[in-house]
């Protein structure tokens, strides 16, 4: 199983429950994928974004129980066929022995440069992680404070990258997605103008810092613009698909923001509002009056003395307008995660037509919401089981 996001975790647990031994390789330091750093977007009631579904799937990931979890492990290559796959894994040095670290935090308390810390407050494994570049040893100093401080002998100061070859009968790829690089749309100012962020930045900031993050983003008079379809429905940019979740996400984030910051006005700029990410039409029927919907994607984001100026067509009234905003949030689409160890991919990069014995699950096959990704995990587990049964 490659990837421990919602799809990979679900597939791993489903297979383990049927007695199949699973090796779950995750390139990050913790499980959960992108969803592990998304915020709750409830306003007065839950908005069914699926973040806590993903959190629950992560939580029920018990150590042992048939799933061997390897974090900091990146797949270099997959060779062979059903019943005889050889997968080459590269291990990134974490600096901490995951099987011995209890998360007590003594090392972090004493580290003079805060180079060792826990990567996530909720996701497993809870083992700490040593940032090799921030560590004093990178500068040649012989600092061993963390290793001495650790009561469990879990710090590995000489941890080096290594490779490993593992055998498998079936391979499940659940490598997720990459957000569209918004800086490519130079006219929207991401990476150039302060005050232009993406929905991914907003999710992460809100998750990590809470409502205080919103106050920091929008201190003064508050007008926020959400620009949809950045890197989606854009054949000219090589992204001719709808990423499905960005419209509901923008609506939810806007709803949360106007609730947290009284006086905030939010305007959403879209082409076709996907407020029916299946079945949730009713959720967005009663939008608060502070949320304005404009059909028409802005052409330019310009920095003006009064804020950020957006030039757009209000298609519903066929007028061309310009409006000032304090914050512009770009709803970026979901790209494929990039070459998955030489596996065949469609023109857009999403996995398809995979060889026998290899199954794709989740966003690496095309954009999906979190609940759909969990479903994908179940589906992939069934497909993998089918392969295994045909082998025996």
């Amino acid at each position, binding site marked *: 199983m490659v990837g421990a996001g919602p799809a990979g975790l679900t597939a791993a647990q489903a297979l383990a429950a049927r007695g199949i031994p699973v090796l779950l390789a995750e390139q*990050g330091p913790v499980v959960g994928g992108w969803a592990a750093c998304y915020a709750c977007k409830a306003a007065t009631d839950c908005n069914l974004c699926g973040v806590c579904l993903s959190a629950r799937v992560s939580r029920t990931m018990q150590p042992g129980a048939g799933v061997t979890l390897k974090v900091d492990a990146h797949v270099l290559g997959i060779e062979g066929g059903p019943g005889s796959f050889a997968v080459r894994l590269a291990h990134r040095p974490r600096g901490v022995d995951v099987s011995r670290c209890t998360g007590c935090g003594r090392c972090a308390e004493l580290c003079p440069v805060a180079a060792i*810390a826990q990567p996530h407050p909720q996701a497993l494994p809870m083992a700490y992680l040593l940032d090799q570049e921030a560590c004093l040893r990178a500068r040649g100093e012989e600092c061993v404070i963390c290793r001495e401080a650790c009561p469990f002998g879990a710090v590995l100061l000489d941890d080096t990258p290594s490779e490993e070859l593992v055998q498998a009968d079936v391979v499940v790829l659940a490598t997720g997605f990459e957000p569209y690089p918004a800086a490519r749309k130079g006219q929207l100012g991401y990476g150039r103008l302060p005050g232009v962020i993406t929905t991914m930045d907003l999710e992460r900031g809100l998750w990590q810092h809470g409502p205080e993050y919103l106050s920091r983003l929008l201190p003064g008079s508050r007008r926020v613009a959400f620009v949809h379809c950045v890197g989606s429905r854009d054949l000219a940019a090589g992204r001719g698909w709808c990423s499905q979740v960005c419209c509901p996400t923008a609506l939810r984030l806007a709803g949360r923001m106007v609730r947290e910051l009284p006086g905030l006005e939010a305007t959403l700029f879209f082409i076709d509002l996907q407020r029916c990410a299946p079945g949730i039409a009713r959720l967005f029927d009663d939008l608060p009056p502070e949320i304005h919907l404009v059909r028409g994607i802005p052409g330019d984001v310009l920095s003006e003395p009064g804020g950020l100026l957006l030039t757009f067509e209000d298609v519903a009234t066929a007028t061309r307008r310009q409006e000032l905003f304090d914050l512009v949030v770009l709803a970026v689409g979901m790209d494929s995660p990039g070459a998955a160890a030489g596996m065949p991919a469609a023109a857009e990069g999403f996995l398809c037509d995979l060889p026998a014995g290899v199954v794709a699950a989740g966003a690496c096959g095309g954009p999906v919401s979190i609940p759909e990704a969990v479903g994908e995990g179940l589906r992939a587990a069934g497909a993998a089981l089918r392969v295994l049964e045909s082998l025996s």
Partner: protein
Amino acid sequence: MNGYGTALAVCTCGGTLCGRLDVERIVAAPGFASALVIHDLCLPAGSARVASWLRETAADSLVVAACGVPAAVQAVVEVSRAAGVAEHRTSLVDLREGCAWVHTQADQATAKALRMVASAAAGVRESTPPVPDVEVRPSGRVLVVGTGPGSLAAAARLKDLGCEAVLISGTLERFEGQAGEFKARIRTDQGVECHAVGAVIAAGDAPARMPAVQAGQRVAFLLEGDPWPSVTESTLSAALHLARDCGCRVLVLFRDMGVAGRGLEELYREARGSGVTFVRMEEGSLRIVEAGGEWVVTLEVPGLGSVTETVDVLVSGATDALQGTRGLAEVLGVAPRKGGWAPRERALLEPVATERNGVFLIGSARGPYTTDQAVRQGEAAAMAALSVAAPGVIAVSARASVDVERCAFCLTCLRVCPHQAVTTALGQTMRVLPAACQGCGVCAAACPAGAIQITESPNRRLLAEMDALMNGPPLGGRPTVVFACANSAVPALQALGRLRLSYPAQVLVVPVPCLGRLEAVHCVRPLAAGARRVLLCGCYDRSCEHLVGPATARRVVERASALAGTLGLDPGAIHVASLAPVDWHKLGQILGVSCDDGDRNGGEASKVTAHATA
């Protein structure tokens, strides 16, 4: 095991807790037959030591004061197994994330730790042994309802996985039982059929067929409803075929084009490129007049004025297709009781499952899904159904049980259970179906006679734990009691701990499986014992796994506040709050503390990203 007394094991997490808690005082807590201090419970060496010590003490119950991580939970299970102590007679107290890491004053933290330990001890002494496992014997048969692509995909995958799919063509009339052993009654043209199945996968019917249009005619499609992907898929496929292959002039009038589904934007683009003309009905006035067998369509298009076209055929997009499946959802027991969308919104948080174990809704029975989505869901449901319906024997332990002596057969539990887990049994009593019960405790709270109890936490145990928590060394202020739902507040509390974000030691936490477990007496008792506030922290209405938790909690709080008033206590001291498990900031707000980035120790999660690339 014949033994006596409760044993206490305290883990100092490698000694790191010693600076924050007075471990010696905790080890010397009254009421324990024996006590031990260790440093590494979650490592094999440590748990082995605890196991051998426990065997020597011959205790019959065990309280472990350590941390809350899965490894510690696992260790306690192993220790009790190795030492022959029944699992229900053990309790793990989280002194680390739940106490030492979040309270800055060591004396207050220690006082709270002593209360927590005493509470756990009182709890294990009131614990009841689990009900003996019941054997459920699924036959490997799964009922598949519906004739669409989703059902066919589910049936095919079930067959691959070694199950038998029973595809029915009639109407489902009755459906009862529990996951693994359902009984379904179906009415067909030939009469009535009865099937015994382990699970059911219900889908809608095959998608709408192509409208009756002749080659060369002028057609207008009218999409007036919500931008449902299923409607988009069927409309665009039809429009494309008519324009490209039948030489028709095709017009599509719509508001928003719902392309949220794999391949839909591509289909839309193909239709646009094949000569289908799309016009938005932007809050405009659409007028359709019938004139001599033709339809004259007039539309106000913004910026272009009035636009008119005459067509031969007018096709309306399907709206509210899900109403047709409401009847089916009711028979399956997964429709909302009072009106509302069927299936209920909470179902949307699950990919295929519903609140009833073994009942899966896919495709158009679940929502306006496309063919591709229905097929994927069908395959996912087949895998999910496998766990409850695969041929074999499954041992299920009932998480709730009925005391037949007390049961008055009022049927309240049957009515309130959100999971269809209570049924009537012989002898005019109620029975909990072990494979359906999810242990929320709503039935236990609702039973007027207290006849139904959750095995893990019978009422006597909960009350004993609460009383012990309320009576202990001074905390530096009047306590605030927080009833924490296992799905939301408990994980959020753990996050506060892992981030070392401090809150007052007067906050005492009582975990419950769901807020629906609580009755008015549970809320008032802490007030009577001197608490300043009582908070019920759980999920939101739409995210509650047991559906009724927050609503039940609000009713209970109303009753409890009234009760408090009559007893001379503060009626405004009991509150309900909702949060998500990942929203520890909200929990901080509720507890009245600031959750600014705390210690350097774990607070700076930004530096070490959770999604680091190689």
